[in-house]
């Protein structure tokens, strides 16, 4: 256009209703169209990696709760798997099933939050879909409370198993949840997935080409929405994932709708995994008899990774023979998924920006660590 | 309120508009002044239509509305004028990146 307009630089955040915590985007607009975008983060930095070097191996579990605070179970899982690799131990079978079960419940809860806030950012400010999501999420958190007494910061998993076996009344409660939840999910899908406004707002918006996604090391639903069936639960099964059958939903266009669709489908698959776990689980011990203070051999390194709701979550641990890790590096999916921000946002409008950011479903606790 | 008072108010408005149209540098300010002049003319027309009897009044009572009809046309034409005029202003801005009339005169090619 020969019409020269003045570029306008706006700080979206750190205080903004839709930046998922304290996240800042320095955006340069031409009218409402984004020409430049620069993510700024670090506002929530708590030095988790450094703190982990000052605590013993079991204490670090509580730190991992606070990384991605909407999916603490999977954070626990990744860390515990890393420590188990470091020690060279394998948890008992029942613990593996319990871990898989709670991880999938956590995935459902986390995806419900992702989907709910994604819809909120699309402007259903009445909050109906968000509350539909929260209704179901609350039930899952209640289940977690029965397991370990906490709802958000669970610290349920331990190196070598889980904190304790599920109480007797957990199984009927889980059963009740499995009866109610599919109906609630259907209600949500009916409200959302066929909505025409949602279609025009998300179809074809901010597509992420597969090569860009792979080159930027993107993982999780964002990668799968771009068309690659890459899921660590299939590629490198951990815990009980080699015992259960499930599909990996894959998108085609990598647009906002596909990212939403992949999440919704994963919820269905997770539900099926939970069912299989319940059907297959056998009585037995839930925790290895490990010493209270763990020590690994000096010079051993281990990388434990899982498929968290947001992508590949990995803990890289180095031991110097002491009671705490010598070095703890966290590969957080949210941070790496942010590397495609520019590809997703430049050229789109302000309204799409917020939605695309929501579709990546970042969590600042994990980005800033 | 008399016809004379109404006409004088309209005249004052017209002259203020005239001054603005002549003495402002910004195209948009000139536009605004012209709009004031349009309005004062409308006012005059309607006031005359209200108070002064046209020759045809005795035969045709609707001729009392002639002033209003003229005002309607002026408003319509003013709307067209603003649309086109602002189009020209935008075109001017596109070429000179300024809405200053004095600069526009100097940059004539």
């Amino acid at each position: 256009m020969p019409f020269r307009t003045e570029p306008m630089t706006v700080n979206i955040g750190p205080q903004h209703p839709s930046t998922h915590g304290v996240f800042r985007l320095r955006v340069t607009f031409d009218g409402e169209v984004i020409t430049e975008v620069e993510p700024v983060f670090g506002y929530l930095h708590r030095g988790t990696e450094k703190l982990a070097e000052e605590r013993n191996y079991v204490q670090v579990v509580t730190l991992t709760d606070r990384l991605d605070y909407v999916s603490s179970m999977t954070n626990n899982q990744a860390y515990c798997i890393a420590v188990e690799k470091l020690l060279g131990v394998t948890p008992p079978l029942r613990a593996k099933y319990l871990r898989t079960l709670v991880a999938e419940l956590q995935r459902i809860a986390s995806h419900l939050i992702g989907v709910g806030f994604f819809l909120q950012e699309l402007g259903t400010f009445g909050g109906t879909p968000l509350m539909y999501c929260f209704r179901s999420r609350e039930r899952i958190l209640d289940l977690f409370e029965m397991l370990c007494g906490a709802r958000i910061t669970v610290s349920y998993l331990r190196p070598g198993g889980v904190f304790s076996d599920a109480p007797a009344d957990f199984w009927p409660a889980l059963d009740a949840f499995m009866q109610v939840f599919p109906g609630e999910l259907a209600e949500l899908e009916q409200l959302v997935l066929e909505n025409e406004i949602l279609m025009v707002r998300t179809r074809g918006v901010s597509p992420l080409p597969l090569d860009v996604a792979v080159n930027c090391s993107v993982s999780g639903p964002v990668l799968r929405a771009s068309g690659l069936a890459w899921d660590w639960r299939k590629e490198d099964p951990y815990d009980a994932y080699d015992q259960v059958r499930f599909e990996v939903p894959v998108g085609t266009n990598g647009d906002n709708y596909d990212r939403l669709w992949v999440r919704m489908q994963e919820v269905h698959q997770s539900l099926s995994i939970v069912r299989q776990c319940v059907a297959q689980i056998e009585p037995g011990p839930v925790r290895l008899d490990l010493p209270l203070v763990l020590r690994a051999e000096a010079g051993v390194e281990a990388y434990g990774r899982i498929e968290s709701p947001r992508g590949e979550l990995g803990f890289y641990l180095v031991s110097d023979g002491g009671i705490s890790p010598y070095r703890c590096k966290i590969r957080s999916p949210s941070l790496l998924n942010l590397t495609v921000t520019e590809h997703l946002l430049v050229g789109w409008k302000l309204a799409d920006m917020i939605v695309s950011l929501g579709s990546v479903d970042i969590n600042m606790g994990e980005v800033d660590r | 309120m008399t016809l004379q008072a109404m006409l004088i108010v309209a005249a004052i408005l017209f002259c203020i508009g005239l001054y603005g149209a002549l003495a402002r540098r910004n195209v948009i300010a000139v536009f605004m002044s012209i709009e004031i002049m349009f309005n004062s003319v409308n006012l005059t027309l309607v006031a005359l239509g209200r108070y002064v009897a046209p020759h045809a009044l005795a035969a045709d009572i609707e001729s009392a509305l002639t002033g209003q009809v003229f005002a309607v046309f002026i408003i319509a034409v003013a709307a067209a004028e603003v649309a086109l005029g602002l189009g020209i202003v935008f075109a001017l801005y596109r070429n000179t990146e300024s809405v200053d009339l004095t600069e526009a005169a100097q940059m004539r090619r």
Partner: protein
Amino acid sequence: MSCQLAAGNILYENPLLRWVYDIAGTVAPCWAAYLAAGLAFMLLLVNGVLIGTAILTWAERRILARFANRIGPNRWGPFGLLQPLADLIKLLTKESLTPRSADRIVFNLAPILMLMPALLVVAVVPFARNIALADLSIGVLYVLAISSLTILAIFMAGWASQNRFALFGAARGVAVLISYEVPVVLSLLGVVMLAGSMSLNDIVAAQAVPFFLVQPLAFFVFFTGVSAELNRTPFDVAEGESEIVAGYHTEYSGIKFAIMQAAEFGGTITASAVIVSLFLAGWAGPLAGYLGWLWFLLKLGAVLFVFIWVRATFPRLRTDQIMAFSWKFLLSLALINLVATALEVYFLRGDSRTLTTVDLWVMAGINLALAAVAIGAFGRLNRAQVQRVRPPLPVLAPAGAPAGKAV
């Protein structure tokens, strides 16, 4: 002193005003009594709208909460009915901030200017038989003209705040309002043609068949256009909370914010009142002579409920999509409706130059079919980019495995 009103005067037609006028006329000069009668009714209307605003904020929060499986405000008073009062006290006692770089005069003037159209429009709405402040012969045009002033207030608020989000909101709001003005005005032409008058009173009287049946397309266009002009979901881009914080009223706080909110909800109420008068036969109903106001309020409540329902359900559109919706979809529908109504009125009216109830029913039949066809056809044209929903993946596990087996 006894003042006598000429028959044909606005006040004469209106029993309430005449009563005030007669009382005031016994003690004051006639012109003062005239003024007093008008002011008394204005006081009633303004306070009615403001109290209605308070009730609407409560109702909207309660109903939205029910849609979302929540309870909503329930602490203050029965069913939380005093919540608006508590909110008001909170806002009144808050510091009324003016940003340092803001244009102080314009910034403070904008909320007042925003409230003004909402209050002015009720002047011509007939609440019951012969109860309206002014039965203007150009009522519909008056409503349109006054409500177009909101644009200016929004722009003033957004510009004077010196805030980027506010400016975004103002620019979006003005763009939306200007686009939707066109279909809204065109849609009302059909109604005016049917009633043969622009006075709201005459239009209500002409609705032997409610006009939302006779003019379904116009009703659809007007309802949609009005929700866009009122910045309600799914057209609330001007204050899209998730995108631009609060749009043009980002910088407003305290009492100024309260006035802005009152203007917004008051605008919804007056717009609904206009919809009721134009399309839902206003105060007409059984025993309309005595219960006209009740019918009016019931219909008002129904329209408001639809507004809230829409808000609870739909996501927001993008600005360019809203523009496209107005120009490509609503404008076409309004034009179709205009041409169809003109032809129907011309052919059905016949020599008597009036439309009978039978004529109206015939038109209702034709127009309902036309509306279905037109909305379907244009919807399909505009839906090119909307593809079918992707089918869900199969779930592999055998469903319904007994839980609790492994206790």
